[in-house]
């Protein structure tokens, strides 16, 4: 996605057309997740997969403010994190399908994607891992003039990684943005029944760390918060914790029909679908319907090409796969 090199801070002062690319990236994530859902049901995506449909505005809003060589660390619900940071949908789809052309050659699968070329130091299958990875990447970033961002869920806020790394990052004033995607559920359990205090952003006060609670379905709200946090990190003032309220449209994983949701909850969130909100906002900003339609068609075509290439790509050949335990 084309990122304006000098993205304005809060409010988006650039031409409305510059907002089309982030909208297109959100749409790409939505389409990707729909394809993964379909391919999983067809038996072509193996094991399990965790879909992020409904949460697209968070990674896209954050990455809007990051540079291509900044670092991000994602979660097992990480397809959106990778795509938002710039991973090409074709090698990502191939990875989901276990193909040799996957971004990790079929070795990683849905939960563990790594794409160093685009600054994705990893997606972590174990809750909280991304927090540490970004904290460490921020040690490098401090020297390199870069910023690192960690995506993690509300469940990770109760993990040792969260407390240890937020404290570590703050005492060392590391250039890192901690982005909590609060989707209200840790697996199947409502967040408020297992999270003391219920206020994840508020926990930052204990570390004397700036924080914000953000409407995670509003691309521009996420972007505004990200702009301040990234600026703070890049100028040497240290980390920020952002708690972005959002919702996953699917269940936790492919084995979860999400029957624990109270009646009407999904519908209420669908009424605030981040893609619909973004589309309306584009029109308000004066972007033409035909321009939006054009990027929607372009994104659809890009996804179709990616899936077509992925499903026809070869599997890795165990006879020629030359795995080495160590880098020599």
């Amino acid at each position, binding site marked *: 996605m084309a990122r304006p090199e000098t993205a304005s801070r809060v409010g988006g002062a650039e031409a409305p057309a510059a907002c089309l690319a982030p909208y297109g990236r959100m749409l790409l994530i939505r389409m990707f997740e729909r394809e993964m859902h379909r391919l999983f049901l067809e038996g072509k995506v193996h094991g399990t997969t965790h879909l992020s449909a409904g949460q697209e505005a968070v990674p896209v809003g954050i990455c809007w403010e990051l540079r291509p060589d900044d670092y991000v660390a994602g979660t097992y619900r990480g397809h959106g994190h990778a795509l938002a940071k710039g991973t090409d949908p074709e090698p990502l789809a191939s990875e989901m399908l276990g193909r040799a052309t996957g971004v990790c050659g079929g070795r990683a699968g849905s939960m563990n994607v790594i794409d*160093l070329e685009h600054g994705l130091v990893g997606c972590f299958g174990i809750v909280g891992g991304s927090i540490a990875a970004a904290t*460490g990447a921020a040690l490098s970033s401090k020297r390199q003039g870069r910023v690192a961002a960690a995506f993690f869920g509300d469940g990770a806020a109760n993990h040792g990684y969260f407390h*240890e790394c937020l404290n570590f990052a703050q005492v060392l004033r590391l250039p890192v943005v901690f982005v909590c995607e609060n989707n209200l559920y840790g697996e199947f359990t409502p967040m408020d029944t297992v999270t003391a205090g219920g206020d994840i952003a508020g926990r930052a006060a204990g570390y004397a760390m700036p924080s914000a609670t953000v409407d995670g379905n509003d691309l521009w709200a996420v972007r505004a918060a990200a702009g301040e946090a990234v600026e703070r990190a890049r100028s040497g003032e240290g980390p920020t914790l952002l708690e972005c309220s959002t919702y996953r449209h699917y269940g936790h994983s492919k084995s979860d029909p999400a029957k624990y949701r109270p009646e009407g909850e999904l519908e209420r969130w669908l009424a605030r679908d981040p893609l619909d909100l973004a589309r309306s906002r584009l029109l308000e900003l004066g972007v033409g319907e035909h321009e939006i339609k054009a990027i929607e068609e372009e994104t659809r075509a890009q996804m179709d090409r990616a899936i077509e290439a992925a499903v026809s790509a070869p599997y890795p050949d165990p006879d020629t796969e030359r*795995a080495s335990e160590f880098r020599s």
Partner: protein
Amino acid sequence: MSELEFRTAVRDAIAEEIERDDSVIFFGEDVAAPGGVFKATPELHDRFGDERVFDTPISELALAGAAFGAAVTGLRPVVEIMFGDFMGLPMDSLVNQSAKFWYVSNEQGSAPLVIRSAVGAGGRFGAMHSQIHASWYQGVPGLKIVCPSSPADAKGLLKSAIRDDNPVIFLEHKRLYSVKGPPPEDETVPLGAATVVRKGTDLTLVSALKGVPDALAAADLLAADGIDVEVIDLRTLRPLDLVTVLRSVAKTNRLAAVEEGPRTGGWASGLLGAVAEEALHDLDDVWTITTDETPVPYSPALEDPFLPSSDSIADSVRARLG
């Protein structure tokens, strides 16, 4: 030539690598201003400053995680996790992040980091400050595990570990820190290469860390009984240099592995299994000399007999050889 103390060998290796390579950083609990609780890292902070050497919170999971994230983005972190017993805390990051990165990323990059810890019993530190974590980690592909037994090897192996492109777990036995010995002949000692530290024909004793000087002292005792013992210092437990052990066993036909830890799940048992699988025809006898299957006791009256020693090793060999 002046003798080198083990703890100084560790300090010098870190200092020389920080000086040699701008990407090397060193951090941990009380390692910078205080110079380490075992006084292994004094003066490094004064010499190299906050950017290269710094103290951290008591947050082992964050230390290992930060080391991982730093290592995959261009730095070469050296981290001290004070006691080996604490190595349960950072295990997720080391096992699931660092160890798997090279393979799972399809070799896009690796995690070049070193985690140093003081290990081992005999110091009356009790059950939670006396363990050796080598066997906890030995079954994890992607990790290297280094166990030096002498000052020269400590220096040469640590320098190799810092230069290595893979995650390395580096163990320093507490009862070796004050040992003095000749400085290393070469700048580095390769990882994954065992060494025959005493030649013999009747029996091969294999060990690592403090077990090596104990095995050498036992070999002296046994020589008086006319038993000619070969002693192998494994130096690295993963990757394991099986070839050197097999070559020795082909000559001696008897193998005892000395491990300061329980037999069940230990590296010594694993080694015997691998040797049996490869060279059953060469073997007249194989056994382990290990600790009881209990935590490490505190009282000197209990701790001393709990540990393998030169006497207990010699007794075991005499009993076994009849």
